[in-house]
């Protein structure tokens, strides 16, 4: 076991975990942030996506050590702003079905919009193709990202 000082959703926390433990399980089980989901455990589904210094990363492929000195943002952090354009757009387009993958999708969309405020369909496809959704919400995810971009542009 080892101590790691992390910054998650703007809060500084110290965790005592096995150094090999994936960041995913540290978030979910040590810090109780269960919005970040386990599904494949090997970086092919994207359900565990979080932001590390603004970049979308797979938390199942990282350890707590990898996150030291970086700013981690999870769905819980993003959704503190309940009228965040992404959440508004996701509600308006009624994107989610089972909802299990949606936190990862929203986190990835957050990273996309911070780099490309008005993404094209192909830019959306490129940024989001690493995230699986078994319910098939992709057409609505596309629409919601465009809508969120529009809402963001309108923000003062």
């Amino acid at each position, binding site marked *: 076991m080892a101590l790691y000082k992390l910054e998650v959703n703007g809060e500084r926390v110290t965790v005592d975990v096995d150094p090999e433990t994936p960041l995913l399980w540290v978030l*979910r089980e040590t810090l109780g942030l269960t919005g970040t989901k*386990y599904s494949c455990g090997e970086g092919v*589904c994207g*359900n565990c996506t979080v932001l590390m210094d603004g970049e979308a990363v797979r938390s199942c492929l990282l350890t707590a050590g990898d996150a030291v000195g970086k700013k981690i943002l999870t769905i819980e952090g993003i959704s503190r702003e309940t009228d965040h354009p992404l959440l508004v757009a996701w*509600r308006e387009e009624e994107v989610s079905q*089972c*909802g299990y993958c949606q936190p990862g999708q929203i986190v990835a969309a957050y990273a996309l919009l911070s780099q490309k405020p008005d993404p094209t369909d192909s830019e959306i496809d490129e940024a989001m193709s690493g995230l699986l959704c*078994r319910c*098939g919400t992709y057409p609505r995810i596309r629409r919601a990202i465009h809508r969120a971009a529009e809402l963001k542009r309108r923000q003062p």
Partner: protein
Amino acid sequence: MTRNMELRRREFLQVLGAGGAGLVLGVIRPVPLAGQEGAFVFKPNEFIAIDRQGRVTIWVARSEMGQGARTAVPMMVAEELEADWEKITVVPALAHPTKYGSMSTGGSTTVRRGWEPLRRAGAAAREMLITAAAQYWGVDRATCKAQAGTVLHMPSGRKLDYGDLVVTASRLPVPQEVALKDPSTYRIVGSKRARLDTPEKLTGKAVFGFDFTFPGLLVAVVARSPVFGGRFRSCDAAAALQVKGVQRVVRIPSGVAVVANSTWAALQGREKLVVEWEEGEHAGLASPAIDDYFRRHSGLEGRVVREEGDFAAAAAAAPTRLQAEYSVPFIAHAPMEPMNCTADVRADRVEIHAPMQSPQGAQEAAAEITGLPLDQVHVHTTLIGGGFGRRLMNDFVEEAVHLSKALGAPVKVVWSREDDMRHGFFRPASFHRVTGLLDAGKKPVGWHHHIVAPSISVQLFGEGDGRGNPDAVDGAAQIPYRMGNIHIDYVMANTAVPVTWWRSVYNSQNAFVNECFMDEMAHAAGADPVQFRLDLLPADSRLRAVLQLAADKSEWGKSLPPGRGRGIACHACFGSFAAHCAEVEVDGSGRLRVTRYVCAIDCGQAVNPDGVKAQMEGGVIFALSAALRGQITIAKGGVVQGNYDTYEPLRINESPEILVHLVPSHLPPGGVGEPGVPPVAPALCNAIFAATGVRVRQLPVSSTSLMRSGE
């Protein structure tokens, strides 16, 4: 306001004065609602409670797995209750053997089976509230009506909130006969309503089974036989127990459980576990042998499930006879949330929290394992991260119950993605031989469909349970086209590969065969595939209407550039009618791109039209994943695929544009979760044929080269 407060005070006194009246009437029961345990509520039946603030609680007995049950069910209740939609709270029902009827979420039944009882439950409550108001005002109840959570006295314009009427209403008998609303007066059913489960699903606060936890809860993963039917022989747990956090290694019927204080520790512990298995008779089982086995069985005479006219005589006379063989592989459900279950088995009580499609089955299983009566088994259905039929099985629930019983402590059993892929139950593979006849005028005059497939019901329940029916003919026996001579037969060919219901069940195989071979017949007849089908369907057929709608909306018949093609398919199942037109593009090297699906569905009254659209969109993508590359292959007696890299669902960059058209209708609702699935694969393969001339008769599509014929 003062008047209403006075009314509340009076009613309160009346109830106090009435002593045990509530018990006598059997309708006044304190039901704990969040934050107001013991508060008075009006609960005329098992589905509805209204408190003194007018807040309405609706119990949903079907699982929410993304299909919108926790929104569509309250919409049906609220419509007849004339409830204020903003005041509704939904509560998932605890499993109960009889109270709610069937709680199984399968067969696209939530809305179609709930339609009558749920509306009647709402209407009964509404009538009682109207009577209560009429009594209070001392007016004829015919002069009162309910609207948006209030009762209105029409002549005077006076109004009372439901909350002010609950005590009086509770003292009234529950009416046995109630009038249901005329569809023209619907204001909730058929309207766009935001899904009630959406907000929490976007913040990460939604609790799926995998997220359910409490301090001290142990987590377990199970090592299971790599071979179907293999048995435990021996185990060396020493290294596993050395892993920090691992607490116990316990044998349960399905394998060896590694119990730890965290998921990661349990997974690491299992890596270190050395288990020897008696592999048994299936150790050598492999896909090619299963294919041969099906083919051998195809030589057998089948059990005839539909016989119309005289196919043999027609075949002898018909100038044109076509025959083709089709096959589909085993496929997995692979929901995003892997299987999991939390169980706490005590001496006199069991608590279960899990994402389940059959909580009553879970309750029975836990009662049997623990020996406790059903009413001491408390089964809580969590949100489900995708079901698709997989969670109608309760194998993962049984594991958790066995384990908690052995440990004497609460435990959450979790499955890894690989566990899910390799130890699940699969959509059966199947083999089909179809023969079609055309007369001299190129009209279809015969259809013979010979099906070889495992029987889900026999594999799951055995021969002797009276259900040994040829379930594998669903969707084949009901082929809707009028062809005069129809012969459908079935050869059961069970294997060691576990099977279960997969979204749309056998309709997924049989619609593929029906609709692809109809396309072959149409081309052989030199006919347009849409017109060919239309001519074989009765004029008043609902299937005919959706076929026509899909064709119209997809601009069927309008020419496309070379390398592009449209394909049509339609199918009726689960009480609904669907037709899809697929559009594809295939380049010179055989690379396929699915560009568009135009879907038409007649599901009768759409309760939540946007939800119907979502199910159709999702059905297209789910079925496309399967059709394009979904395949579970068997080697050495087990499943080859392990994760989403080898069993890869469709991704957003491959997802076509999907346009959904609903047929407006007030007929009773049909199913919606499944009917969008079956026409997807045949529409795709027919479009590929239109684009390339290559006929795909074996799924997944990836197993056939799509190089254009002649190139």
